[in-house]
């Protein structure tokens, strides 16, 4: 890291120092957590008490309030990881590694939830838990990529080395995911003309949009909170590794 002395860059320098980063961002966690809690409460209230059943799907539309935010996050988290990967490779930002590592399990979890809620939604609307439909399938592939990244992180002993290698894979994945998405859509229409009914045709009424947006922000803020907390933990974990190695070698 080159030392930049211009005053307006100091926050960047401070953020790139792990200890400083923790000190700077730790006070954010509690407010973020509270905000997330309020948003969830509001979202659930809107979702169950103030929004009517939808005219085609009935009450199952309420699954949307958890399905769409998680599905959206499944992609947003990957974008976060890809940007962090660039941060690792191009700018060599020390916190980028940490962010990349913290995001992977979160992304996997949100993707799994999107799949779960999607298939529970699919049963009453399409009559099946699983269909090899383009969007569902590419989400499944995304889950595999996430899990692969988690496995890759765990396979390395030295997390600093791991970061750069994982960053390469994350970026290769980032280039490839649009191609996968395209190919899967192409594939599903190739073999099976669209026979599935999709809800995204009619524009949604406001009573449905409100809870959707509130839940959407709730999930996003939850991700931000968890991501920050996980980053702090990871910083500490690295410190522990250093201290343990040092202890093993008999230095105080």
């Amino acid at each position, binding site marked *: 890291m080159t030392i930049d002395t211009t005053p307006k860059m100091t926050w960047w320098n401070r953020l790139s120092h792990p200890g400083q980063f923790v000190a700077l961002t730790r006070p954010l966690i509690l407010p973020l957590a509270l905000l997330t809690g309020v948003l969830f409460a509001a979202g659930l209230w809107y979702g169950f008490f103030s929004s009517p059943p939808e005219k085609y799907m009935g009450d199952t539309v309420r699954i949307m309030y958890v399905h769409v935010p998680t599905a959206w996050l499944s992609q947003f988290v990957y974008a976060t990881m890809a940007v962090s990967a660039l941060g690792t490779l191009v700018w060599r930002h020390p916190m980028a590694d940490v962010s990349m590592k913290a995001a992977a399990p979160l992304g996997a979890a949100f993707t799994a939830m999107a799949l779960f809620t999607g298939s529970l939604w699919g049963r009453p609307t399409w009559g099946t838990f699983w269909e090899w439909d383009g969007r569902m399938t590419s989400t499944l592939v995304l889950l*595999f990529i996430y899990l692969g990244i988690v496995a*890759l992180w765990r396979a390395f002993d030295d997390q600093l080395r791991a970061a750069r290698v994982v960053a390469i894979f994350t970026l290769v994945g980032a280039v490839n995911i649009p*191609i996968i998405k395209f190919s899967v859509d*192409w*594939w599903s229409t*190739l073999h099976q003309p669209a026979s599935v009914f999709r809800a995204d045709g009619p524009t949604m009424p406001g009573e449905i949009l409100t809870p959707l947006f509130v839940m959407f922000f709730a999930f996003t803020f939850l991700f931000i909170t968890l991501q920050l907390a996980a980053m702090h933990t990871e910083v500490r974990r690295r410190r522990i590794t250093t201290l343990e190695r040092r202890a093993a070698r008999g230095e105080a």
Partner: protein
Amino acid sequence: MSGFISVLTREIRLSLRGGGEVLTLVLFFVIVGAIVPFAVGPDKVLLARIAPGIVWIAAFLAMLLGLEKLFGPDRADGTLALYRLADLPLSAVVGAKVIAHWLTSALPLILASPVLALLLAMDGETFWRMVLSLLLGTPALAGFGAIGAAITVATRRGGLLAPILIAPLSVPVLIFGVGAISASGGPDQAQAAALLLAALSLMVVVLSPFAAALAVDWGED
């Protein structure tokens, strides 16, 4: 250039002297093709319909088998560290390895594919489309394989990690590969798939040596 040839000949030599490595791949390829009829029963129409898919799955899995050897032994005996000090850029070394990998693990499969075509009751025209599709698509698999192998070599465990990393990435190759064989979508679609496959292969083959070289360089210690 002469360095590139050196790596290429070394790799090919090593895999030809290995005694039956190529044979193993071919055997595996054929076994996968032969097992499926047992699973689905002797329905020829059905077999012919899923034949393109089976061929591609068999080829894909067979290429996964050889991945471990791409960088693993070189790492273990210290050769990989010396590659990083070689005059030849690491990406060229990896490029030569990718080519050798394709020559020793994809080409034999393509040569053996008539056997599979026979077992799966493929007709003549489909057979030729299959050969073309394999020719166009396997380079992409080799390239992805190299990336996977390079990324996992520093973890010193190899085995199944590389396959699980690259299998999701290879989905487009499978889809377009099968699309380029099967006639169900009409000849236009088969041709479009073949073109997409070729484009994908080209991109992967050109970029993978650099990505893999970066991974090797940064992962090693």
